[in-house]
C-alpha cells in the first residue's frame, strides 16, 4: 500500500503556510523562545536567531547552520522556530549596512551566549571600535582591561556569537596581517573593504 503516501500528498507550500501560522501563534503565546531565519548577504547566507530579548546569534554558512540551531536548542530552549518576522529589523539594518548606508547597528542584543572576559571583550569591541577602523588583538586586550590577554581576545573573537553586528572583523594582527575570522578570511576582507570604501 505504497499508494497511500500518494493519496495524501503534502505540498511544501502548505507546510510553510502552517509553519508561519504556528510561529505567529507561538509568538502571541510567548512560547517562541528562539526565532530564526537566513538572509542572503555579500558574505554568504547568514543565519540570524533572536530570543525575546534580542538578537542572540549570527552564523556564517561555514559554521553549519543546522549545528548552530541544534546548539541554540541545547543551550537556550528547544522551542526554536523559523519565524522571520522577529528578525525583520535586523535584516533591514543588515541590508543597509551591506549597501553602505549604515555604520552602526541599533537592535537589541541578547548577550547570553558570551560570558566572562569574552563578553567584556565583545562589549568593548561593539562600543569602542568604530566603523571603518581596526584594532589589534593587543589593543583590544588593553581596552578590555587586560593588556596581556591577547590570546583570550583571539578566542573571544573566534567564538563571537554575533559576528558582523559585533564587529570582530575589525580586529587584526599587530603586524598588519588580516588575521583569522569565524566566517573565513575572505568574508573578513569583504567587510573591511566595504567599510573602507
Amino acid at each position, binding site marked *: *500500500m505504497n*499508494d*497511500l*503516501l*500518494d*493519496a*495524501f*500528498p*503534502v505540498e*511544501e507550500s*502548505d*507546510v510553510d503556510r*502552517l*509553519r508561519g*501560522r*504556528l510561529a505567529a*501563534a*507561538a509568538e502571541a*503565546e510567548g*512560547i*517562541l523562545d528562539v526565532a530564526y531565519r537566513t538572509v542572503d548577504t555579500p558574505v554568504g547566507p547568514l543565519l540570524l536567531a533572536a530570543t525575546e530579548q534580542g538578537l542572540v546569534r549570527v552564523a556564517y554558512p561555514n559554521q553549519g547552520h543546522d549545528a548552530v540551531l541544534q546548539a541554540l536548542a541545547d543551550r537556550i*530552549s*528547544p*522551542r526554536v*522556530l*523559523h519565524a522571520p518576522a522577529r528578525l525583520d529589523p535586523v535584516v533591514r539594518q543588515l541590508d543597509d549596512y551591506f549597501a553602505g548606508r549604515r555604520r552602526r547597528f541599533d537592535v537589541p542584543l541578547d548577550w547570553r551566549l558570551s560570558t566572562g572576559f569574552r563578553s567584556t571583550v565583545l562589549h568593548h569591541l561593539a562600543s569602542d571600535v568604530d566603523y571603518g577602523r581596526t584594532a589589534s588583538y593587543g589593543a583590544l586586550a588593553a581596552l578590555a582591561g587586560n593588556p596581556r590577554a591577547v590570546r583570550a581576545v583571539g578566542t573571544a573573537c573566534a567564538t563571537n556569537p554575533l559576528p558582523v553586528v559585533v564587529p570582530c572583523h575589525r580586529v587584526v594582527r599587530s603586524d598588519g596581517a588580516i588575521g583569522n575570522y569565524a566566517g573565513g578570511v575572505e568574508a573578513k576582507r569583504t567587510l573591511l573593504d566595504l567599510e573602507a570604501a
Partner: protein
Amino acid sequence: MAEFGPTVLRVVRAVLGPADADDAWSETFLAALRAYPQLPAGANVEAWLVTIAHRKAIDVTRAAARHAVPVADPPETGAEADLPDLDLAAAVAALPPKQRQAVAYHYLTGLPYAEIAEILGGSADAARRAAADGIAALRRTIGANR
C-alpha cells in the same frame, strides 16, 4: 521537531480529511511546543507528535460533531481527475476510525505497531489487525472501483 511537519500533516489529513487537517496540525504543534521542554531526552519525537495529533484529531472530530448542522448532499465535483488518488483517499475516509488510524499511523509514518498500540490503546496485535483489516477493505473498495 520541524522535520516532522509534513508527516504529521499527512497523518491528520488521512485521519480527519483535508478540511479539518490544518487546525489539527496547528493544535498539535502548539501543544508540542508547550510541552517540549518536558520531553525526556532521547524520546521518539515522531511517535510523541503522532500521539498528540491523535488526541487533537479526536478533539476536532468531537467539536465538529457538536457543531454539525444537517446539509444537503455535497455538490458534484467535476475536477476529480486532477486530484491525486481521490478514490483511495475517499476509501480511507470511509474506514471505521480505528482501522483508519492504524493504517495512517503505520503506513504514513512507519511507526511500529507497539507504538501505535500505545496511541490507540489495546495490544500491538490488535493494532496490527486493525491495520490489516483496513488495508483489506481499501483493496476491496479500490478493486471494485477500478
